[in-house]
């Protein structure tokens, strides 16, 4: 099977998994979630093979254009979810995460994203390409999971507040759980994002550009994203913020991460013009 076919097969499996997870969400079918997990895992295996195959075909790291980067981010997000689902009991995130992954895969396969592998420009010919991009995107995948938990928290909290108004009492379990998981997942992603995005980025920049920091828009936006996650962690750990305020900061931080990933490329020009 060729790489595009494998990618497509993974895409289809993710869609089927999403359908099952939606059955689980709306019809409360436990079995559906379990089968959804299996399908998503099978999709991830095919997706892994597709990425490996692409490396062999193009002869370098598979994140040198938007198609490749989006595909890798989708892969990292599904992988992070599959690893965390059981440990953190976050099955209800499944349908939303799969929808996000499907969106990323759809965007990757849209005609807007050039797919042909261009040979590497001189600046990208380095092993740091592997480390810098993959670790950053894996960190962002954890942020993606943490953001979805935050959004689910906001939804659960709203529901519980309304429920309380109706019944005069409420069960905090759902929202409190999402709140905690959100923090724990972001706390896994933060060191990875720092390592890949900032530290590895600086080391590579000093080798390739002769300067570890150039205030390039992508660099600054990585720093901005890092600051907002820093704000999230400090308000939480030191000031004891929880719940809605915390969830909102997490969502804003992820929007900044998305802007760093997409927006900078299209709206701001700089040294990272090829990424």
């Amino acid at each position: 099977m060729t790489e595009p076919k494998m990618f497509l097969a993974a895409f289809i499996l993710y869609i089927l998994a999403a359908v099952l997870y939606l059955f689980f969400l709306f019809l409360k079918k436990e079995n559906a979630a379990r089968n959804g997990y299996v399908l998503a895992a099978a999709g991830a295996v095919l997706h892994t093979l597709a990425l490996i195959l692409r490396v062999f075909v193009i002869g370098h790291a598979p994140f040198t254009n938007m198609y490749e980067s989006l595909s890798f981010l989708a892969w990292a997000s599904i992988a992070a979810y599959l690893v965390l689902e059981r440990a953190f009991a976050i099955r209800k995130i499944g349908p939303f995460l799969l929808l996000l992954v499907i969106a990323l895969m759809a965007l990757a396969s849209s005609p807007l994203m050039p797919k042909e592998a261009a040979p590497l420009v001189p600046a990208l010919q380095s092993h740091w390409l592997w480390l810098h991009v993959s670790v950053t995107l894996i960190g962002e995948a954890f942020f993606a999971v943490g953001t979805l938990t935050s959004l689910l928290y906001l939804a659960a909290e709203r529901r519980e507040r309304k429920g309380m108004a109706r019944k005069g009492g409420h069960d905090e379990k759902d929202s409190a759980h999402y709140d905690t998981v959100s923090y724990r997942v972001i706390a896994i992603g933060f060191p990875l994002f720092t390592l890949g995005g900032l530290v590895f980025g600086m080391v590579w920049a000093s080798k390739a550009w002769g300067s570890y920091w150039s205030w390039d828009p992508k660099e600054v936006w990585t720093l901005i994203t890092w600051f907002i996650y820093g704000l999230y962690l400090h308000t939480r750990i030191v000031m004891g913020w929880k719940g809605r305020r915390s969830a909102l900061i997490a969502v804003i931080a992820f929007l900044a991460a998305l802007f760093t990933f997409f927006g900078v490329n299209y709206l701001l020009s700089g040294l990272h013009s090829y990424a």
Partner: protein
Amino acid sequence: MKSLIRLLSSVRLAIFLFILVTAASILGTFLPGLNLYRTPWYLSLLLLFALNILVCTLTRSYPRLRRTLKPSWDWTAAGLAAAAASRTFKQQAELEGLVRALREALAARRYRMRELKRGGVVLLLARKRTLGGFGADIVHLGLLVILAGGILSGVLGRKADLVLSPGRIADVPWAGFQVRLEDFKTDYYPNGNVKSWKSRLTVLKGGNPALTRTIEVNRPLKYGGVNFTQSSCGWNWDEASVILRVRKNGDPALAREIEVRVGGETDLPETDLRIAAVRFVPDFVLDGANEVRTRSYEPNNPAVQIEARRAGRSILSGWLFSKYPEYGRVRETEATGLTFELRDVKADQFSVLQAASDPGVSVIWIGCAAVMAGLFLAFYWAPREIRAVLEVKKGKVEAVLAGQSAKAAEAVRTDLDAVVSAARRERS
């Protein structure tokens, strides 16, 4: 003074600075013309942030360090029993035997212990991953080191762009040695994209070659504290020459190629004509006013303006394009029957190498290592603490244990259960 320290150690100030620095940085990316990140007020914002971090870290880490090194031993059985994660059990056993069993169970879970006997009461303090509690402090100190490195780079860092044509020598102004570019080569992929730029560089010390190395993007040369990186390159169009192919209609014998320096002229053999290359542009474009300009310094659309002269009088002139021979426009005032083509352009490539000495770089790497170590400690190495009180009451030993961990509350509960059941099993 005291209120200043209180202000600087406040988390509120930190939050305020977080938001301010973030907002300023965002502004800077959308208004690149401002060059905001080098303005005094952005830098003073960063310095204020650094001061805030320093005071916060010192005021918070000291008590934590003291607590770690000198525990207070001030807990009681009742206090522990009221903790969020606590276990109480009574057992028919000797006090010392049970203490030993507990210590063994804790040691099996890699806790390190201290013990205090007070009257008939045994206090036990077990900790693991203690260093994790200092992760945040290490991160903060690492950030200060990075900032110090940045200041060092700004103050002591030297940087120069060396523009070198092959064979030329450039002085590295502050380093006391020179470099000579031996040759410069651009390699291309089959599709025409650039594959690599290679500058072969010789370091000259007192005029004598000390070392020769090829520099590429991602393969810098470090010599005598100076880092040489391949920064860019270009063509020396001012000293280019063009190769023209000239044919005479109906006279295949006259087809020949001649080389003309831009700005110069040369004889067209077997005729009484001289051919001049009046002007050359590497990337031809007509601007709004129909003036010829070059869009870039890359040879994307090389074009030359030629003139043919007879006895000093111009009889023919026009533009030739190497990529679009059919669009050449040549006007004649006297019929010559000649057609011209721009076959090739010869220009030397020059290489731009960045020479940089930056004593801040190694400081930056130390800071980065500290930040990463601190982050992994803070988030992946959460400290856990179990405190216990054991006491003989009515012939039985009563043990109360409480676990505490801000970032691994569930793990410490698991530890508690495992330790309690192991200690009890040991006894029976």
